[in-house]
């Protein structure tokens, strides 16, 4: 019963000094709001990474040129993948389903008076299946078209909209770098991934792209789709060994290509996001600590102001622990209320902000964590003032003016 009276008095103290209470709680409010929002962004980023990779399809191994470095300093990316490397894989690596060479560039694509600057990807027909791209309208190109450097193109849904509006692009001709390409298909929409929109691109045979559009013999990437049930890592090792042979790398010269599977890339991205999340949380934690100091400050002032009251309470029978717990409750109420306000603020902020198309995800965990931590801050930082209060000599305290 005494507990409820103390909680009631705690709330009344808060309300009686609204301005002061709010100022004291501000640190906690902001700290908690920051924790909620930061964790929400972090969780949203994690979810996005997961979604992205799930959209990419499984069993995928990506071979890219390695970065060049001298003594740990990265100075650029190598240029060393050739079509014959891809061919070698087809013949010499076991357990693979298909191999897709890749190049890409960014060029203007024109249709009459409409034009758009977009990504042009030169791919093999197998790209569509290994990367889970579904055709919406029309068809994808064939190996025979790839072999004869055919000037055919498949548009992403957004690119099609940009150039053709509601008209049907299939059968029409677009100009890329002044060269006419026949549109043979439009992809189904996949959704903007943030830093890359798979709906805003043009896919052409890699052969055509390399010779006609880019004038290069170098590949940007080689995708390898493994057969189901294969040991991905074994295949990766085989590919790496093959690449070293193809590029005449001796002994312990470092690999000049990166051979990564989807799981690894997912892990790397996830690790990065986790670091990001931890960093953000540290910033928020500092804010909470500052908030706690604010509470300690105000509680010290409050205790001094209520010296007389403490003396009275002791005179009528309150023990040291009664006074200690009373003021601890008041500190916890203050930080608890601040925490609750902070949660509301943090949730509101999370709804409003979208950073790099990451949609923040507020979890129950972060709410429970924040309120618990806020309460803990109240106990920790409120302890010293409460202890001071409990140690007051009743005779001295009663004399206090």
């Amino acid at each position, binding site marked *: 019963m005494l507990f409820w009276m103390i909680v009631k*008095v705690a709330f009344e*103290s808060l309300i009686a000094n609204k301005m002061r209470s709010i100022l004291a709680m501000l640190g906690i409010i902001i700290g908690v709001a920051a924790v909620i929002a930061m964790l929400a962004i972090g969780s949203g980023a994690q979810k996005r990474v997961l979604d992205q990779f799930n959209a990419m399809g499984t069993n995928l191994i990506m071979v890219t040129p390695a970065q060049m470095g001298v003594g740990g300093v990265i100075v650029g990316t190598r240029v060393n993948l050739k079509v014959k490397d891809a061919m070698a894989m087809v013949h010499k690596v076991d357990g693979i389903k298909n191999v897709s060479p890749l190049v890409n560039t960014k060029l203007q694509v024109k249709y009459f008076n409409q034009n758009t600057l977009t990504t042009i990807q030169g791919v093999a027909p197998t790209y569509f299946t290994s990367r889970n791209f579904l055709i919406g309208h029309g068809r994808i190109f064939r190996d025979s078209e790839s072999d004869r450097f055919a000037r055919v193109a498949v548009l992403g849904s957004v690119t099609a909209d940009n150039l053709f509006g509601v008209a049907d692009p299939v059968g029409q001709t677009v100009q890329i770098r002044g060269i006419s390409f026949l549109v043979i298909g439009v992809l189904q929409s996949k959704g903007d991934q943030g830093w890359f929109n798979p709906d805003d691109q043009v896919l052409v045979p890699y052969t055509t792209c390399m010779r006609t559009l880019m004038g290069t013999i170098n590949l940007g990437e080689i995708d390898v789709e493994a057969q189901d049930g294969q040991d991905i890592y074994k295949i990766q090792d085989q590919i790496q060994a093959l690449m070293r042979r193809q590029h005449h790398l001796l002994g312990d010269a470092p690999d000049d290509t990166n051979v990564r599977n989807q799981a690894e890339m997912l892990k790397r991205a996830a690790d990065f996001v986790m670091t990001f999340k931890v960093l953000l949380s540290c910033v928020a934690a500092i804010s909470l600590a500052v908030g706690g100091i604010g509470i300690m400050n105000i509680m010290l002032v409050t205790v001094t102001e209520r010296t007389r*009251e403490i003396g009275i309470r002791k005179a*009528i029978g309150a*023990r040291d622990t*009664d006074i200690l717990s009373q003021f601890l409750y008041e500190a916890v109420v203050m930080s608890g209320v601040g925490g609750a306000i902070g949660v509301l603020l943090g949730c509101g902020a999370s709804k409003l902000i979208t950073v790099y198309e990451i949609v923040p995800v507020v979890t129950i965990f972060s709410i429970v964590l924040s309120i618990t931590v806020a309460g803990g801050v109240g106990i920790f930082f409120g302890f010293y003032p409460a202890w001071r209060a409990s140690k007051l000599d009743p005779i001295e305290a*009663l004399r206090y003016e």
Partner: protein
Amino acid sequence: MIIKAENLVKTYQLGGQTVHALDDVSFTVDNGEMIAIRGPSGSGKSTLMNILGCLDRPTSGSYVLAGEDVSRLSNNNLAEIRSRRIGFVFQNFNLLPRITALENVELPLRYAGRHDARHHAKEAVQLVGLADRMHHKPNELSGGQRQRVAIARALVNDPAMVLADEPTGALDSKTGEEILALFKDLNRQGRTILLVTHDAAVAAHCRREIYLHDGKITVPPTETPGHRITETDADELLTI
């Protein structure tokens, strides 16, 4: 005997010097007495009051309250004695401002851990005649009413004694008389009351007086004519 004080000594250090606040004070108080502890400023009456009220311990000597030696108790134990055995009334009421009169009155019992606190508090409030104001906060009450609330608070735990420190000091003379009358009423009902005051007129309402000077019990200096009227004198006068 509700109080037995023997050879109470209280000294403390003040800036390197030793102050003898109480110097070998001994007396007893019987159950149901109403006595005054009087003396000028610096006589040690506040110090004595603090020791009798278990707010402080004597440097030496013994103090037995309701059969229990409380001279050497720890702070926590003293607090417990205060909540169970002693009722304080102060000069400036010392009510907690943010809670109602009733909540003020029940506080000692709450600290004593009693679950029937509210019930006893209501009884005490009725005893001092403030039943109609018990849900008001102190700042909504007059000085006299506040002191009544304080008296109710002092009574709520059925204490061994009520210790009142200049209870009329902050009141006008009419209200002061009302409060003293209330004390006398309570005393007639059997309460032991100790009134600490410097005012001879206030002390005159008590049947017995302990006079302090320089930390010792002495005989009070001769007073102005118009000697103390005791209750027996008053009865005699009225029957003449």
